[in-house]
């Protein structure tokens, strides 16, 4: 009996690596600490009521961003492990198998469990506020989206200590990801982690598309909508068309692995190329999905901190829509070297280059927004300024890669690695940081320390260039991606060494950011945002107190112009808005909290775990739980309530009293 348990445990838990034992211990300690703190301070009920079951888009957004930061830590540690391994030739700090797992989880986590939730967090917090809405179109679905993402992310992360991590790269190309070469449970964790969170992403895409199309404040025509919701709209369109492809692709891979199907295997008529086409039909739009909202954020910030209207608003809108459509026509540029033939390669090379045109136009428009403006360089603006050169250079190397015959030399090399890190860190991550700093006071009601923020910015940037510029050269020196080590004879090591130092600097930058947040929370009383409009903003979210009351707007705004709040401030009518007249107030219709989403996501988690280990005894109850949740929810008619006028008055008085004093 004991032997049986021991045998099971040695296969079930990942053993033999001190790093993993360390992780085991820290996971246990953190869990214990959380449970102890919550119990000791009797906060369980508060946590459940205020956060876990909340359908408030702002709280869901905050939970997304918190999770994204945790995942950034995990993905960043992965990155540092890889860079440590590659700093010196022939190092055996990480064994090849372990190294393969590390780069795979780094990729998956950074794109799907860091960038995506970070983006969704910003969607959630800002979109309803900017379009003058009180919530998203489907609040419970929104909560479910978050919990599905969370369940998927946790399932994926569990593979680190239980069963073993996936090791077939972030897109898991077959045949390597098939059973014949990859028999462990790692790939199944990959499939189900992404699958479950992917359903959540798709639902978020639908939710925000509907929210933006149907819930704008009266008078806000589409062409009077701020740029950020526009960017969210174009991103959501791409989500709606691309995520079903991902779901289907992973489902087919799962059938191959679980049921012995032959969609992508080498025998039985399967074809791995089909997977590669399918996964990039999702994967390429995916990078535009995450970068488009960053474009929106930059547009808001450039305009606010230059105290000037955004230049070429219409061009910006069209450029984003063109990008979101074109992103579906370029996927084969990821495999120019797989022998598609000259005709196909030419088509995809040209369609890829085309994207540079609208993107270039956007850069010009940002520049000319600053032109003849009054630029103040606060942290959000600093990140925007840092973004421009970084993204331009990354864009240029992207155009270089799109020259199909030249890509035969860039493909799979460190040149490619440098390129996509430059556009994703320089574009996406800088953009989300800019957004986070910009909207932080709106989220929490206090501003963050600018001084620490600037230190973090410079560490990020110096670290970035030191890390990735050498990698372009390494690519041209013939260093291929995903190699665990290399010899002294190649001349690669000085550049790799510099690159590792750069990565460490970015690690320090992340610590500084965390410190900035802790510092902010500690001294929040000194840095209260009493006006609700700390940057002298232009759009509706700045017209309400910080942090926003849970119903957002006591009276729905009547929008007349683009940058409506700024225009009202110019005309001096904004003061009237602050004195909310009693007669205008009406009871506000709000959604009730619901425990269904978190329970349903928990059931998905169990089902996913069961699928991974082929445990039907767990899968079946898990899926049944999902069905029961749906059924129960469909019979739940008690989903909404009205906030009485008295309560609105009290809340507004409490929030705006600060304004008066």
């Amino acid at each position, binding site marked *: 009996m004991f032997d049986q348990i021991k045998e099971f445990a040695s296969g079930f838990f990942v053993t033999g690596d001190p790093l993993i034992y360390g992780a085991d211990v820290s996971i246990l300690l953190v869990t214990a600490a959380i449970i102890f703190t919550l119990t000791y301070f009797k906060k369980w009920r508060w946590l459940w009521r205020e956060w876990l079951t909340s359908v408030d888009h702002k709280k869901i957004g905050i939970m997304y961003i918190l999770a994204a930061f945790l995942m950034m830590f995990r993905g960043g540690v992965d990155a540092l492990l890889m860079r440590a391994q590659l700093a010196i030739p022939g190092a055996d700090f990480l064994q*090849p198998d372990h190294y*393969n797992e590390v780069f795979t989880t780094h990729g998956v986590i950074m794109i799907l469990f860091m960038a995506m939730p970070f983006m969704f967090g910003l969607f959630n917090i800002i979109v309803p506020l900017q379009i003058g809405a009180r919530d998203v179109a489907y609040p419970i679905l929104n909560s479910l989206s978050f919990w599905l993402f969370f369940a998927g992310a946790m399932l994926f992360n569990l593979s680190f200590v239980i069963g073993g991590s996936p090791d077939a*790269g972030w897109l898991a*190309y077959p*045949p390597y990801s098939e059973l014949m*070469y990859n028999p462990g449970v790692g790939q199944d964790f990959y499939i189900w982690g992404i699958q479950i969170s992917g359903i959540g992403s798709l639902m978020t895409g639908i939710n925000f598309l509907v929210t933006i199309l149907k819930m704008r404040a009266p008078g806000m025509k589409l062409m009077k909508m701020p740029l950020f919701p526009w960017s969210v709209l174009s991103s959501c369109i791409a989500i709606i068309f691309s995520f079903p492809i991902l779901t289907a692709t992973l489902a087919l891979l799962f059938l191959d692995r679980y049921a012995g199907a032959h969609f992508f295997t*080498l025998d*039985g*008529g*399967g074809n*791995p190329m089909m997977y590669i086409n399918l996964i990039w039909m999702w994967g390429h739009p995916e990078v535009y999905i995450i970068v488009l909202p960053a474009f929106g954020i930059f547009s808001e910030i450039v305009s606010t901190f*230059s*105290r*000037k*209207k955004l*230049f070429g*608003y219409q061009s910006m809108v069209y450029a984003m829509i063109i990008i979101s459509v074109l992103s579906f026509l370029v996927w084969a540029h990821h495999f120019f*070297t797989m*022998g598609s*033939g000259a005709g196909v390669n030419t088509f995809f090379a040209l369609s890829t*280059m085309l994207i540079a045109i609208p993107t270039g136009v956007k850069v010009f*428009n940002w*520049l*000319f927004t*600053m*032109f*003849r*403006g*009054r630029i103040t360089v606060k942290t959000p603006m600093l990140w925007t300024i840092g973004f*421009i*050169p970084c993204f331009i250079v990354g864009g*240029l190397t992207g*155009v*270089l890669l*799109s*020259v199909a*015959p*030249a890509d035969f*030399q860039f493909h*799979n*090399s460190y040149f490619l690695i440098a390129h996509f890190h430059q556009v994703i860190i320089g574009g996406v991550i800088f953009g989300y940081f800019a957004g986070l700093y910009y909207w932080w006071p709106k989220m929490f009601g206090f501003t963050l320390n600018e001084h620490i923020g600037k*230190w973090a*910015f410079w560490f990020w*940037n*110096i670290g970035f*260039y030191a890390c990735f*510029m050498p990698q372009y*050269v390494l*690519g*041209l*020196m*013939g260093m*291929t*991606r995903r190699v*665990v080590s290399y010899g002294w004879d*190649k*001349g*690669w090591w000085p*550049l790799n060494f*510099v690159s590792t130092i750069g990565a460490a600097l970015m690690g320090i930058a992340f610590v500084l950011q965390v410190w900035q947040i802790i510092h902010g929370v500690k001294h929040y009383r000194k840095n209260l945002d009493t006006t609700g409009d700390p940057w002298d903003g232009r759009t509706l979210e700045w017209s309400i107190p910080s942090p926003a009351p849970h119903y957002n707007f006591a009276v729905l705004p009547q929008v007349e112009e683009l940058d409506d709040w700024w225009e009202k401030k110019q005309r001096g009518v904004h003061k009237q808005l602050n004195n909310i007249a009693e007669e205008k107030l009406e009871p506000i219709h709000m959604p009730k909290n619901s425990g269904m989403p978190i329970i349903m996501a928990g059931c998905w988690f169990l089902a996913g775990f069961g699928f991974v280990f082929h445990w039907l005894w767990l899968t079946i109850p898990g899926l049944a739980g999902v069905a029961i949740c749906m059924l129960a929810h469909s019979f739940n008619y008690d989903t909404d309530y009205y906030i009485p006028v008295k309560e609105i008055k009290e809340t507004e008085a409490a929030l705006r009293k600060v304004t008066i004093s």
Partner: protein
Amino acid sequence: MKLPKKLRWLASLSMLVCLLLASTGCSEKIIVLNPKGPIAEHQRDLMLISTVLGCLVIIPVLILTAFIIWRYRDKPGRKASYSPNWAHSTKLELIWWGIPIIIIATLGVITAHATYALEPSKPLESNVKPITVQVTSLNWKWLFQYPEQGIATVNELKIPQGVPIRFEVTADSPMNSFWIPQLGGQIYAMSGMAMTLYLQADEQGKYWGSGANFTGKDFAKMYFDVDAVGTDEFDQWVKQVKADSPELTLDGYKELAQPSTLKTQTYSAFPKGLFEMTVTKYASSHHHGLSQKEMKDMPASHDPGSTHEDMPASHDHGSTDEDMSESHDHGSTDEDMPGMDMGDS
């Protein structure tokens, strides 16, 4: 903000260090920019042309960015003009829709032209008859077969200088990518198909080649030396291999195909049609090729479907040459497939 200013200096300094590192001493090692064959040379030129074209836009933009931020920074005493409502100018917008369109159009024409010119399966223009080398990516080693010379090597590629080499590339392992940067760009090695790639070495010398697409545990060890030598020396070498090296048998191949690493190896002979057998056993068609499992289970010499003693053929009874050429991609014609004889049964 005093400190960030210092940090800014640090930033420029670190950039300088990177540049120095890149430019001193290792420029010889930037092998992609130091081509030794016509394909790689053409690719290097393309890289340079596209970089220059791109720089035509981005350098002015970078300068403009720096200037605008410096000029319009809100500082006491700065008298730059301020027009908060100036947000549209058709003329300006036409200019910056126009410039990228012109640059991309130019680059597009160049790219389209080069894509056709450098199509990897297109034979190189040369008076010399090409040599065929059949490349198989195995876990975790490269097998090179010289069908015309009748020899094979592992992780060592010797080629005659100035002679076009017709590589036929496949995999008997997860997909890989076959890359010799100084001779020309890579091409994927995929099971069930044979990709064609023409390369040529203009100079004698040793070049670095490797697998570029991840294949699992010992992927990092899948590199090889490419030795470009004079034609005489090459013939000499072939003779020597013929005389001194052991033969690669079918069983030997199966052994070789097992996951393991190996330094280098030469073989004086290999089973006829081994490459084609490797390709066809994974070939996807509605007829069944040999599955990997069947391959393993089957003693080679007792293959019932083969007219050759040592070459298992497809199990399928209706297999024709047409089916075969479907699976051999990219300009492979039957006459390019020496030793291909998939007798119907």
